[in-house]
């Protein structure tokens, strides 16, 4: 199955019904994407497929044929959201963080706090109570 992973043309030999999550973590050894539930409820496995955030635990590999997939590793190590999550303590245990950041990427630059809440409503965090995550997202936009 061919697709683009973090900008690199990739060809994976796996069952078409394999979960994209397993393909990314095991076949491609990109373990930044996390599994919290395997049932589409927690968002820890969020990646971008053609620019849209999706739960990779629910996506069969066949569905990304020819698509652009971006995982947390695709942002490099120097993305403003990553720094803001660090500085604002948007990450405590950190298991939700890659998924949160991937979900936050799709926000418009002028998104209000309510827009942020809606965009992240599929991403569970058990540590922060979310406020620090909002602070991080707001901070990341400041020049």
């Amino acid at each position: 199955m061919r697709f683009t992973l973090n900008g690199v043309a990739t060809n994976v030999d796996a069952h078409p019904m394999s979960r994209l999550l397993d393909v990314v973590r095991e076949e491609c050894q990109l373990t930044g994407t996390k599994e919290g539930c395997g049932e589409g409820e927690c968002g820890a496995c969020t990646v971008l497929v053609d620019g849209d955030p999706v739960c990779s635990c629910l996506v069969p590999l066949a569905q990304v044929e020819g698509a652009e997939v971006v995982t947390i590793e695709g942002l490099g190590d120097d993305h403003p959201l990553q720094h803001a999550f660090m500085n604002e303590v948007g990450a405590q245990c950190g298991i939700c963080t890659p998924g949160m950041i991937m979900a936050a990427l799709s926000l418009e630059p002028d998104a209000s706090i309510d827009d942020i809440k809606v965009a992240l409503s599929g991403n569970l965090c058990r540590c922060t109570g979310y406020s620090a995550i909002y602070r991080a997202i707001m901070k990341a936009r400041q020049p």
Partner: protein
Amino acid sequence: MAAVGNSVPRKDGIGKATGHAVYADDIVMPGMLHGRTIRSTIPHGRIRSVNVVGDVPGLIVVDHHDIPGRNVVDLIEQDQPFLVERDVRHLAEPILLLAHEDREVVDAVRVEIEYEELEPLFDPERSEGILKSIDIVKGDVEAALADADFIVEGTYRTGHQEHVYIEPNVVVAMPEEDGIAVFGSVQCPFYVLKALKSLLGASAHIRVVQTETGGGFGGKEEYPSMIAGHATLLALKSGRPVKILYDRGEDMIATTKRHPSIVRHRTGVMRDGRIVAMDVDVLLDGGAYSTLSPVVLSRGCIHAAGAYRCDNTRIRGRAVATNTPPNGAFRGFGAPQTEFAVEVHIERIAEELAMDPVSLRELNALRPGDTTATGQVMGTDCSAHMVLEEAVRRTEFRAKREQYRGTNRSIGLALFFHGAGFTGSGERHLNSKARIDLTERGVRIAVGSTEIGQGTRTMHAQIVADALAIPYEDVEVAQPDTTLVADSGPTVASRTCMVVGKILEQCAMEMKDRLGGMSPADYHAKHGGFSVLRKYEPPDWIEWDDHTYRRDAYATYAWGCDVVEIEMDPDTLEVRPVKVTAVQEFGRPIHPALARGQIEGGTAQGLGYALLEHVVMRNGGMANAQLTNYIIPTTLDTPEFDIVMLENPYAGGPFGAKGLGELPIDGPAPAVVNAIRHFGVDLREIPAIPERLVACASR
């Protein structure tokens, strides 16, 4: 710049934000097998036969006969087996272990188990299996009740709560040259070590390493010892590394939860509002084995009279056995249950006396010089009035309460406290140690205290940096590995900052003396490295009697007052929190942003406990073991927080800090239910799900 008091970058921040941090499920080893646990499908009975169906090449099978040492998870009592031998005491109890190189193959294996079924017991009120009982007596409660102007009685109930750390349990065990290494998502690597020593025999060479841990909240305090034991047995039998990863459903069904409680109050009050007698009865459902229930009960009972002064108090507590999976540690450790009961009860007393609920609390809340139920004299570190007054002032509580009357909005509050560190003589028995090493670059902290999100590495490094007067960046923190770090005790009980941080501060001061004014790097270049190891010295004034439960239950307490504003849907009676003001005093924040995060996160968990998190038990097991129908707060369920951190430094803590981690979860549930009470709904149970509100409203 001083590190303490500033929100320096988290040591683990960037690794977590880039996805580079390594959690246990990220570990892959050559030849690694995938383990699976076969569990009982009945809550009570005896095993007649176990049969693995078919012949699966490469399948490793382990049962209790494969245990070289003792078949018990060594904790407080030695009653829980790693693997059932004959008697099944709860649903989902581990019986057999399987491992195979191919995860799909092992998942497809069928195991047939025949049982002789026995009648299960699920109702804690009918249980005669006492795991622990406690009696706290102060003054003469019966005489004082007889003399009181009024007696107010009530029964309050709380349900299970599931931790829902977003990373489910996972452990990898790997045979090493002369023993076994275990890598896992664990809160207490030295607890795992102790359990494995009993499993394998004392002479076994065992190394336990904590990997990055995706949340714990108490849920990874004792249960990982069980999983580590299982992975170890499979690894030893196969001679290969074995990973056991629970999926969400297994994690929810099989692992521990917060103890359900039934708490009865009988309180004597005078016409002017003075509380003169408190008679409290606490019942906790411990589940099938003792695990940590005795100490959960202990903390629960000590907090059961709330943050109030009363000369005549009797608290009787029991933790009992039922045929359900054992309940265990969960942030707050018994106190959220008993503080829920007492705070809702206080609100009912105010109602009965037609008194303002704030005034009733002002009249009775502890002040320096007062004594608690155990007879502990409050010092100047008692801040009950400070937090109450600030919360009431800041939220304009009284005015809002009037203003909301008759609308679909309401406001409620709760006053609470939380003892920091192990109860009573616990810290003395623990005898924790901490070590720091002088390195080429600076200093390395080597303790078993784990980073589970709360900021252990960061705050410990801040404390050591400032005590040594070196830059924060020059302090590194070793990964907890039981063969390499000092046993600083378990990462529980809000003790990691206050107790372990204090030992580290003393280590750093000793090192500073030895450096004689040189920088660590210069000293190292000239004389080489050295280490400083120190033990915890509890304050010498602490007196505690384990038998009578008298005197100084905790070295100090943190204090909080939460004010919750809610809205109720008039048709569905669904309650939505709109705003929470959390005023909390915990000595002094070492790292304000981390401390704020503890309060916000703990408050959100407390709101979930109050309103959403309903564990439905069927035939002794969790029937809604999925995130689809066990609901924790999402962004849309979590209101705006106004967090206020008041300071009242505690001389026994590093830089004045007390413990904070658990305090925030004690307040939200009673504050929410007290707000609901102002709608005229007499609710005495959580979670406050709409069905229950409908039932109360129609009564």
